[in-house]
């Protein structure tokens, strides 16, 4: 990946990170979108989409509800898509396993950084309290802008970290992998689909949606068996 492509990936990762909470929440931050965008940055959108679709199964567990601390999959998915597109190990099963591991780590880190950022936003409110309580529109705008700037910084850091760690780890995995490649692929698929099944059960396992979820699983399994 060239420095220009890496820079573009960081820019896209930053915008995608802002989408999660700050603006505009149009779900560009979902891995299936972010992965495609990351791949597109290096001219290989479909390679990015393939990784993003896998990570989307992890993201199904995430409910971005108010004050809850939840992982941020967007910037990591952009980086993963770019790495896969740039063939930095993302297309070999062992490299894919490495990239997925890194994204799991940075998604968790993203949630933690969001918590830190929200505490910093409290400090902004404290600093502007007198003006806020006096109805000063500049104070309102300033707090919004400071929050946006912090969130952009958070997303940029996550993208850079995922790109750097993913590049290093994927390289190490591709060169040092001893077991069969299929084992890495099966592990990634089992982990993502396993989390997807759990997430589906958690969301729809009670009340009226439960029977629909089970019906869907059955129908999907039938299609899958015929297709396999």
């Amino acid at each position: 990946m060239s420095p220009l492509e890496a820079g573009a990936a960081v820019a896209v990762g930053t915008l995608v990170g802002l989408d999660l909470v700050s603006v505009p929440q149009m779900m560009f931050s979902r891995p299936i979108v972010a992965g495609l965008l990351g791949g597109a940055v290096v001219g290989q959108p479909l390679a990015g989409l393939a990784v993003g679709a896998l990570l989307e199964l992890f993201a199904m567990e995430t409910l971005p509800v108010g004050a809850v601390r939840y992982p941020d999959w967007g910037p990591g998915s952009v980086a993963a898509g770019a790495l896969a597109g740039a063939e930095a190990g993302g297309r070999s099963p062992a490299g894919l396993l490495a990239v997925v591991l890194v994204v799991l780590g940075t998604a968790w880190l993203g949630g933690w950084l969001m918590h830190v950022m929200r505490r910093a936003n409290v400090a902004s409110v404290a600093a502007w309290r007198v003006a806020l309580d006096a109805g000063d529109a500049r104070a309102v705008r300033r707090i919004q802008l400071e929050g946006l700037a912090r969130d952009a910084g958070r997303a940029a850091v996550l993208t850079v970290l995922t790109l750097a760690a993913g590049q290093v780890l994927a390289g190490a995995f591709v060169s040092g992998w001893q077991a069969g490649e299929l084992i890495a692929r099966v592990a990634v698929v089992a982990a993502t689909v396993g989390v997807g099944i759990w997430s589906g059960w958690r969301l729809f396992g009670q009340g009226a949606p439960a029977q629909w979820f089970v019906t869907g699983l059955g129908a999907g399994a039938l299609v899958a068996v015929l297709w396999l």
Partner: protein
Amino acid sequence: MAVAASPVPAFGAVLFRLFAIQAGWNYERMMGVGFGYAAEPMLRGLPGGRAGDRYREALARESRFFNAHPYLAGLAVGAAARAEVDGESPEKIERLRAALCGPLGSLGDRLIWAGWLPACAAIALMLVAFGARAWAVVVFLVLYNLVHVWLRIWGLRAGWREGLHVAGALAAQGLRRGSETVGPLAGLLVGAALPIAFAWQLRGEPWEAVGAGAGGAIVLAGVVRLAAPRANGMALAALLLGATSVCGLLWPW
């Protein structure tokens, strides 16, 4: 009466700001500052304008604590701004804001986070699996945001129209029917998408690999179910992948 029939003042500016309502989200006022930011253009018409006491008092009030689902927050923004313009008492306006937090939060979570979002994601996953490529993402974004943007526009308009009586808008039949329908629909789609995504990934591989993958996925889901809430799927997936990595890097198998 003239105000009742009037359109939302500065509709475009308020709608635009609603998309950034959570930019300054914090643990003290939650989205309260964003609420004030979004409502501000509607308050400029208060007697005395931006320099007037009514404007400053209203903006200070609208920037206090508030939390709800971001897509439905426009309903509260519109209603509170309308109450300010109508000259309602500060106590009534504060009660209105406080009363709307819970219902708007739970309705939005049920309708969007636990319904429409997973439904659209499941459709996109199935489309990717069946070869729709980048079109799957286009379909996802268009489908999802049709409802998202409509909710924001409808909420702002309904809030402004109803003012203090905005609770009636929440009982709208379309909204109620939507929240009842979307859960089962999403359950069906997510249920169908999981095995299809699995088959897409391991299609053409030996049956032993397919069996190992399916068994691993089911066991992992079961272990997460048993371990929750002490552990989540993400942590256990990392554990599984970490263990596989160590074994794969150390031993030829």
